[in-house]
């Protein structure tokens, strides 16, 4: 393999890895504070990609598109928490109640998919580039051609994740999330508004989906059923990195994206098998992900 091809594959992998990182961080934050997550995270991403596509095609400036999509998805995140997550609290004690969120969030995802097919049809769609005049806008990096949009995805995703970490570790609100994660009762005693924090994490998760959706549209083909793949891969990435550790997720995502890209090059017939094997092997060796701490439950 030539050096240029290596760079080529690496950058392809990094671009997809960046998207997985954004999506998986959404799963992570919701899971951290509530031990639940949005099984339709990928469908939220898909909806964001469609919305952004429609607005871009209508000639709306990019900055405005970004703002609108983020606001709409934030509202969806709020609605998800309000109507599909919160009502489950009263049934937590019931047998099996702890798994209901999978099905309620899946139900919301199905509704989102159907709305998209009713509005935009069931076909694949062309999503215009964000910052280039056409889709052929290529720059050379170490002898490899890369789309400007791909580079952009990597940069924006990294910046977004760093900002997100800053929020999580440096602000009062972020510490509140960790407090709720540790123990909602204790957090409440410390004056944290638990309900608001839970709403916040689902809004944040949706905003991350919004961001990934806007970014991913131009580098793939959007279609109404693309969401599940992203949910599954983000889920894999979050397990790889450990649901407890945001840095692990970033590393897991990059690892997953790059392994995917190279395994498609080396043995394309089973290109999707190798990343799965990686995840499964890692779960056997490190049962709580690369960086997740295994909790002993001796009490």
């Amino acid at each position, binding site marked *: 393999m030539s050096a240029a091809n290596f760079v080529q594959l690496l950058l392809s992998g990094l671009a997809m890895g960046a998207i997985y990182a954004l999506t998986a961080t959404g799963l992570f934050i919701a899971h951290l504070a509530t031990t639940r997550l949005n099984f339709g995270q990928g469908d939220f991403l898909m909806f964001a990609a469609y919305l952004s596509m429609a607005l871009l095609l209508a000639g709306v400036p990019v900055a405005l598109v970004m703002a609108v999509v983020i606001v709409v998805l934030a509202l969806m995140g709020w609605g998800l928490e309000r109507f*599909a997550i919160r009502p489950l609290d009263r049934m937590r004690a019931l*047998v099996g109640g702890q798994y209901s969120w999978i099905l309620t969030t899946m139900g919301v995802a199905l*509704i989102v998919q159907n709305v998209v097919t009713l509005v935009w049809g069931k076909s694949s769609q062309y999503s215009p580039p964000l910052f280039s005049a056409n889709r052929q806008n290529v720059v050379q990096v170490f002898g490899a051609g890369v789309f400007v949009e791909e580079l952009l995805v990597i940069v924006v995703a990294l910046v977004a994740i760093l900002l997100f970490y800053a929020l999580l570790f440096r602000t009062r609100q972020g510490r509140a999330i960790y407090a709720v994660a540790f123990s909602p009762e204790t957090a409440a005693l410390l004056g944290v508004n638990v309900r608001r924090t839970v709403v916040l994490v689902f809004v944040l998760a949706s905003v991350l989906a919004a961001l990934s959706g806007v970014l991913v549209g131009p580098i793939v083909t959007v279609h109404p059923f693309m969401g599940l793949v992203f949910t599954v891969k983000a889920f894999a990435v979050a397990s790889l990195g450990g649901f407890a550790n945001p840095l692990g997720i970033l590393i897991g995502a990059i690892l997953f994206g790059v392994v995917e890209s190279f395994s498609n090059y080396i043995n394309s017939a089973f290109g999707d098998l190798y990343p799965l094997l990686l995840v499964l092997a890692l779960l056997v060796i490190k049962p709580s992900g690369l960086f997740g701490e295994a909790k002993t439950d001796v009490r």
Partner: protein
Amino acid sequence: MFAETSFSPWLRNGAYVAIAVAIALFPLLTGNTFHIHLAQTLLYTTIAVIGLNLLLGLSGQMSLGQAGFYAIGAYGSALLTAKLGWPIAAAMLGGIALAGAAGCLVGLVALRTRGLYLAMATLAFGFMVEIATQRWVDLTGGTMGIYGIPALDFGSSTMGKAYFLWVVGAVYLAVQITSDYVMHSRVRRNLLALKENESAARTAGINVPVWRTAVFAVSSVLAGTAGAFFTHQNAYINSDAFTLNLTLTMLIATVIGGLGASYGPLIGTLITLMIAELIASLYDVSFLVNGIILLTVLLLFPQGAIGLVQSVGKFLFARSSEGSETQAAPTDRAFALPVAPPSTGPTLVVENLTKRYGGVVAVRDVSLAIEYGKIHALIGPNGAGKSTLINCVSGLYRADSGRILLNGKDVSSLPAHARAHMGLSRTFQNLQLVGSLTVLENVQLGIRSTRSMPADFFSWLLSSTFEVEERARALALLQQFGIAHLAAARPEDLPYGHRKLAELARAMAEEPTVMLLDEPVAGLNDREAQEIADVIRRIRASGTSILLVEHNMEFVMKLADRVTVLDYGERIAQGAPAEVQVDPRVIEAYLGGSLEQSNSAGKLEAAS
């Protein structure tokens, strides 16, 4: 007597007969082969869903790979008939065995990982099977499928569909009955216990790894059975049938029907099949309808469809655990506490036990011995290593060196559940009762059944005195501890002191020779502590030796026959309460002694 807690199995068995009759008559009454086809699909899918229901509803393990087991059963049977020419029955068993083997493998992974990580591992497994069926074209035929699979129709083109329905119906009924047994027996109690807290379950004598793997194997066998039937229903399979959607449909059926409920799978599968048929022509809004139904059912009927049905037909099927036990009258036989067999030597000996965490030594070279029918207290300041020691003794931690002898036998290398079986039981500092069981069932958890699993099954199926004896013994224990009136309550509804008593009753039900009590009066008021003290004395009187870890000095001094004091992981004193109380090293340790003094603790050993 406990007549009212027993329950006539004939009502329940009547329901089985009714189902059998319905299945037998259905194909004769309807001439419509499509309806027969749907009934077949309903029954074999239900078999798979029952497996998921046991796995998820009882053991709490989430599998997103059920379609994988289903596919293995289907392809196993298809290939064995079509390529190797096996007879259908043998091939189906072969396919099912393959699915079971895969289930054991995944179950081994499940031992290492939990919760969402387990969900991910099973999801990855499901995808791998999907990839294999799709791409290993030489073997599976991929999307183009396998030809030459015989249909399960006994060679009859007119009655073949009815025959198939009867076979699948018989298997379904057997699975349903077995599942009902599981739901109403010690199997359920054990599974719920390990679901809620594995450590507690282990110390209560449950072999957690075996149970967890077994339940995975069972659920995969059931999924494989469904797959094998699917293969011979249509005499053709291809890889498009075994996608993640299949797993999700089974999951939806499980939850919509009512997780952990006995007829939940049947009703859940019926509902999902009916919805699929109803919206087959509404293809433009099918997802919308499905999504809305999912949300509505889960939010309005959180216990699933069975919750509705049960509230109507409770008196018919559900062996009610509420109500009946509360009315249980005091026994006419006076049950005493189980008496531990007398022993001359010490019942528990700890020899030179050391436990390190990384570089930190939590317990260093500690020895102690407990005599028959005595209370030996283990005290020391916070961080002295008391909890570590008790966890090493009960088998939750493995000691780095030293020996533990239980009734003269070296148990140092045995797992926790094996030690429990040899007469070691324990309670926990922040107590561990199983929240989804009643108080009585929690106590039953401790009772070791002498019946083998098959004997237990037939007793459940045929006898009206199933577990009456066990319940009576459990109730007697509760009576001894003065909380028999709370037998039917859930632990969370009890005051803290009563929960402590219930846990003691659970531990006592194991008929231990040695009981480890980890801070039994922490968080209790004086009156409650007094009650506990009384109970502990009675336990001692029954001959059980007790290792008591406690902070409350007054409590310890009143109760203990002998005291060992730990500080910084080392034994600094041992002796009768009165001796220890005045030991300067002990006073120093509690009041914040200096390092030299605790290091010189060894000298005291000679005196003890």
